[in-house]
């Protein structure tokens, strides 16, 4: 899939990234000052506090930390954002610092909007409605996979509607992401594998998206290299800070890649099986990715051959098709090597679930970006069956 002759795109990645062991405590105060801010509210969850990941950060901020809001559930909601924003406003905060995973980061992104614009979050449901920069946000991620630290979308549960709402705003991209590998050392093995595969999937799908472009490709390809080399090392030894750091960087690069080039069939299917059978997103992505690569093989041979080269599995003298097949085989083997779940049935998924999910996938927006046109739900169902 060569680039269109009339290739035209906008690459957007405004977040400053700071990386290094111990960087969260060392750099946060000066970064806050560089943004012209002096009163920070730190947003986190109870798990982060119990794991002792917050103390050094708040100690480093000293009196500049005017409050800690830690009542963030796993799936954050509008009520949480409203409450956290009111807390921050009450403290006179001029910056939000989020320390945590996707739910914490998304809450903080939405708080920044309400702290700047006021009103209710539902007023901002949509895409690119904002017209000015929002309250500054520094992200300190404690997982490595979502890429949320550099993307400008937030997903929030709206209890009144019983569904998630999506807010996509370039003006609300985090200003700074501080990647401190030490904060990811305590991630359990399964979470390390599944968040790592989430990132791997972001990278592969960005490269095979119809919105593919060279800058995103470069980021995605290197993210793939790093994940392939270092994710197994994290699984083998969770305290390997070099490996943890490289995986964290890979997740951020993959975040930039898919934030610009978008995702495809794997995400459409993962969203759908998540909605029908509550399979966690990263795990669904990890199980489905190699099966979807098989499906896409006919239309993505040159991209998969590039991936094979990056993975070091391209035999000398092999054809593009052979190289592409080697990439797919390598991804299957990779998921086994890192101990990632292999079958959806391990999560209680049944035939009836995949029938529903296949129909649902056809109306998921990600499917239109997929390199191979998906004609009907029977094609999706066939992929689900292979992964069941």
């Amino acid at each position, binding site marked *: 899939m060569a680039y269109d002759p009339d290739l035209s*795109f906008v690459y957007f990645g405004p977040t400053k990234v700071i990386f290094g062991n111990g960087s969260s405590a060392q750099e946060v105060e000066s970064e806050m000052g560089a943004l012209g801010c002096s009163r920070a509210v730190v947003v986190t969850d109870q798990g982060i506090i119990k794991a002792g990941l917050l103390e050094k950060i708040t100690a480093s901020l000293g009196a500049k930390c005017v409050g800690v809001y830690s009542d963030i559930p796993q799936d954050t909601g509008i009520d949480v954002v409203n409450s956290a924003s009111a807390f921050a406003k009450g403290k006179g905060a001029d910056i939000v610092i989020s320390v945590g995973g996707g739910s914490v980061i998304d809450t903080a992104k939405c708080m920044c909007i309400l702290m700047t614009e006021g009103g209710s979050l539902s007023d901002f449901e*949509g*895409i690119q409605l904002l017209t000015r920069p929002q309250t500054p946000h520094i992200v300190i991620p404690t997982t490595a996979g979502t890429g949320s630290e550099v993307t400008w979308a937030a997903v929030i549960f709206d209890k009144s509607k019983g569904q*998630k709402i*999506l807010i996509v705003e370039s003006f609300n991209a985090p200003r700074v992401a501080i990647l401190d590998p030490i904060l990811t050392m305590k991630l359990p093995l399964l979470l390390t594998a599944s968040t790592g595969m989430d990132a791997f999937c972001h990278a592969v799908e960005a490269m095979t998206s119809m919105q593919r472009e060279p800058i995103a490709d470069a980021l995605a390809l290197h993210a793939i290299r790093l994940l392939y080399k270092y994710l197994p090392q994290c699984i083998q030894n969770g305290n390997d800070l070099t490996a943890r750091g490289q995986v964290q960087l890979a997740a951020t690069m993959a975040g930039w890649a898919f934030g610009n080039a978008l995702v495809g069939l794997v995400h459409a299917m993962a969203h759908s099986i998540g909605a029908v059978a509550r399979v966690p997103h990263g795990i669904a992505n990890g199980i489905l990715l190699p099966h979807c690569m098989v499906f896409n093989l006919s239309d993505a041979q040159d991209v998969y051959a590039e991936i094979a080269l990056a993975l070091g599995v391209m035999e000398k003298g092999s054809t593009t098709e052979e190289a592409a097949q080697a990439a797919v085989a390598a991804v299957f083997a990779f998921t086994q090597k890192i101990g990632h779940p292999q079958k959806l049935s391990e999560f209680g998924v049944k035939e009836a679930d995949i029938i529903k999910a296949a129909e649902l996938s056809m*109306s998921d*927006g990600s499917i239109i970006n997929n390199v191979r046109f998906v004609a009907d739900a029977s094609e999706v169902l066939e992929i689900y069956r292979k992964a069941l």
Partner: protein
Amino acid sequence: MTAYKAFTQEWMDAWKQKIAESKEYKEIAKNWEGSVSITVNADPSKNVPQPVYMFTDYWHGDVLDFVICDEAKAQTAKFIMTGDYARWKQVAKKELDATKALMQGKLKLKGDLTYVVRNVKTVNKVIDILTEVNTVFPDEA
């Protein structure tokens, strides 16, 4: 083929008729419920002296209201799309993909984005059909 001046009621009627005649649209849009308003920001230099407000309404493959309206009516739509004249012209001429335009901030959308994402094929089909209407744009007249 008759040419229609963009952003006039006659132009909207022609667009509506083409949608209504499309069997493919009827199938793709069978799950879509609700109205979409389109606001074209004023651009006096391109012969668009005032903002143009359009209200379009769809229901399970059928096309309902399709009218030029005032700002108040536009604000009542389930989805409100806004953009500069130059961007809408690019979309209408298929020079700019609407999804890309939204992602890049060239167009704005207020409303349930997850619904739009799930039904993006419907949105794309409506725009595809628009490109079939022989249109004369204000700065080309």
